[in-house]
């Protein structure tokens, strides 16, 4: 386990950072020793000790320098429910 992460962090089997319900598309991290950890409550951390490329079926790839990254999801405001939430796709 990375010393920077809580002991409760769970290593995910795949390296998916997010998956689309309506499309089946996904954001996947690729690279040497790349790992995605689930810290609970929807918090994911990407460990990319030698950097990573994030790929998606629709969006262009992103190249990340080595490091630990917090994964966030863009927010939107649901006026009907009158609350902010993560964008659902």
């Amino acid at each position: 386990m990375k010393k920077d992460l809580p002991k409760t962090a769970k290593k995910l089997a795949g390296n998916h950072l997010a998956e689309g319900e309506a499309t089946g598309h996904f954001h996947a991290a690729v690279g040497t020793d790349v790992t995605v950890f689930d810290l609970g409550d929807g918090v994911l951390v990407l460990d990319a000790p030698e950097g990573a490329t994030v790929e998606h079926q629709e969006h262009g790839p992103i190249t990340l320098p080595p490091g630990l990254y917090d994964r966030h999801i863009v927010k939107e405001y649901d006026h009907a429910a009158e609350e902010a939430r993560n964008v659902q796709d």
Partner: protein
Amino acid sequence: MWHLHGVRVKQWLAETRAEELDPTQITKIDNAEVRREFVRKVGIDRIVYKLGAKTIEERGNYQLLRMEIAGRPWTYLKMLNPSIGAWHIEGVPNEIATVSEALNFRNGLTPDMIDDENGADWFQQGDVILKPRGAKNFKRQPIVLT
């Protein structure tokens, strides 16, 4: 199952002719990808016109729109998906008055976190944002957006 551009949608959206779709139905669609396909089929201009949206601010490929629905203001950010050239509209809180504030809300940034000179670089791919863990301050915009 019914699909539009690879997005799973309800039968009514797939089979109803575009000119017969009620633009106000967009306010009832929760899923952002389905909403995008609704916009693509109905047309962003028809939706904005039908909802009586007023432009609060326009900057590049972004427009902050405000409309009145059910007697209440509803504020939206209209934006162009740079990867596929399709328009999205997504809700933002009504207190937001500028495109910049709307983007900060979407990106989870508050004014005290923004430091364009010394803040950390961050990355965005669609609706996924990656920020260096432990950083407290960030640039206003992602260094890469795809």
